[in-house]
């Protein structure tokens, strides 16, 4: 790791001028993020325990213009989630789609990342840029490409199309962390394995693969997490039955306008996301200690 910044070494008491500088630097972004990130998150939590308003949205806190207000809190949205097995099914389905996407991305990304990592040093950067370039195009354009491709084959509006779109959009997220891990492997280890009589296949499974686990876990988190919340891909490529948790949340906020339930679903999604992020961080660290 990098050595700490000199100011960090004895930070018990910064000189006054440094203390001012510190807050002049940090206060604007801090304030912005507290107002537009922390506050909205708190409102989301509170909203999930409120009643919906008469015309959608949330019930007002006080009686306004003859409309009954309700400041009370309720578990209604959560009770509603558990009242029908369909919601749990949609959540499980979203997790399975994320898992399938992650595994397919891993299978496609690994050989590519390994191949780039074993190129001569001068070629590697170009090869990495070639991975990033298609990924710099708009997310909708990449979905649209699959509408064109799958249309003539009658595969559009099927679960297959959803997975294909998910994999295509998120593939670079898997390639890059894998590559940065594989690039650091010492080729001498593979030479040693060869000298000891290991076949190429054995060399891969006994040397390269175990060492690349941290890369696999960080890539997997980078694919799994965004896929969890996606609504546009099922909507544009999937059939009527291909509804994931993202579609359900979008529906609550924009169509049926049951905001408390939408907030509750978002909170459930947040918990899943935090669990996945924590797990992957732990695995990455443990893998790094090997």
């Amino acid at each position: 790791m990098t050595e700490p910044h000199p100011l960090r070494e004895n930070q018990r008491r910064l000189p006054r001028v440094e203390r001012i500088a510190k807050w002049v630097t940090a206060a604007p972004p801090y304030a912005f993020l507290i107002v537009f990130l922390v506050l909205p998150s708190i409102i989301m939590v509170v909203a999930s325990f409120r009643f919906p308003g008469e015309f959608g949205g949330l019930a007002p806190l006080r009686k306004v213009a003859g409309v009954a207000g309700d400041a009370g809190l309720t578990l209604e949205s959560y009770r509603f989630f558990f009242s029908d097995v369909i919601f749990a099914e949609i959540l499980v389905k979203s997790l399975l789609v994320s898992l399938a996407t992650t595994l397919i991305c891993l299978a496609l990304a690994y050989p590519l990342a390994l191949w780039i990592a074993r190129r001569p040093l001068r070629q590697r950067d170009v090869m990495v840029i070639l991975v990033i370039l298609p990924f710099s195009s708009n997310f909708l354009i990449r979905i649209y490409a699959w509408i064109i491709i799958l249309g003539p084959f009658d595969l559009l509006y099927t679960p297959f199309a959803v997975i294909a779109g998910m994999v295509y959009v998120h593939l670079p997220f898997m390639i890059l962390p894998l590559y940065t891990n594989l690039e650091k492997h010492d080729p001498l280890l593979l030479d040693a394995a060869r000298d000891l009589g290991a076949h190429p296949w054995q060399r891969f499974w006994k040397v390269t693969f175990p060492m690349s686990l941290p890369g696999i876990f960080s890539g997997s988190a980078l694919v799994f997490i965004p896929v969890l919340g996606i609504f546009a891909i099922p909507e544009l490529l999937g059939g009527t039955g291909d509804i994931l948790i993202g579609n359900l949340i979008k529906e609550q906020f924009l169509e049926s306008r049951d905001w408390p339930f939408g907030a509750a679903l978002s909170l459930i999604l947040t918990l899943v996301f935090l669990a996945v992020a924590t797990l992957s961080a732990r695995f990455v660290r443990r893998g790094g200690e090997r």
Partner: protein
Amino acid sequence: MRAGLALWCAAMAGYALLYIPLAIVVLFSFNDSELNAQWMGFTTRWYATLLRDADMLAAARNSLVIASISSTLSTLLGTMAGIAMHKYRFRVLPVLVLAPVAMPEILLGVSLLLFFRQMLDLTLGFWSILVSHITFSLGAVAIIVHSRLIGMDKNVFEAARDLGANPWKTFRHVTLPLILPAVVAGFLIAFTLSIDDFVITFFNAGVGVKTLPLQIYSMIKVAVTPEVNAVSTLLMTVTLTMIVAASRISPEVLHGRLHAHKSTGRKRA
């Protein structure tokens, strides 16, 4: 050597998978046919159609205005955050900066929607889109600036202080010149993120203001027309140019995202 050949084939297949779908989009934007089905000859008429499409032009204008303002502000705030994360010991700031980059976009989209409608009672439109874009692109700028600073020799800051430079002078004459490429690259990345964003804009645009991705989305939902191919090709050209420029100016753009996870994670012994 058979293993090497198999690896090469798999890698080439990977590249083909990345490029062929987008190549098809570009190719059909020059196709003289109403349908994206077969090649009927070369034409540029879809680009002409685009230039006569009033909705599309309005959306393009909105996208450019919002991207210009939001990327300027997020470059300012993001650079401050990047310097602060590097120079001082903040526990919460890196988490706040990285959260919008790490979490599923829909969560940020709906929580901002709730905030604007419920808390501020704001009519969704230009302002809500602008703020939401700053929220997610600030983090990207901070990561790029921060990873540039990590790569710097710490002694220059130390030397500036020993020579009696106050924090402002250190920033003006040492820090800023060193991080300038990262700041410029950060601005370009923030700009492309803003122009390209769909999910968060979708929730915070309301009915009045349409950006380019929202316009593309509503077209794709209705029917597949070569006009979409044309606008996609143009948009791809713009974002591609910006990303290549940014990575040329500052290599941190390519590695920043990956450094971010390490530098904010707990220090390994």
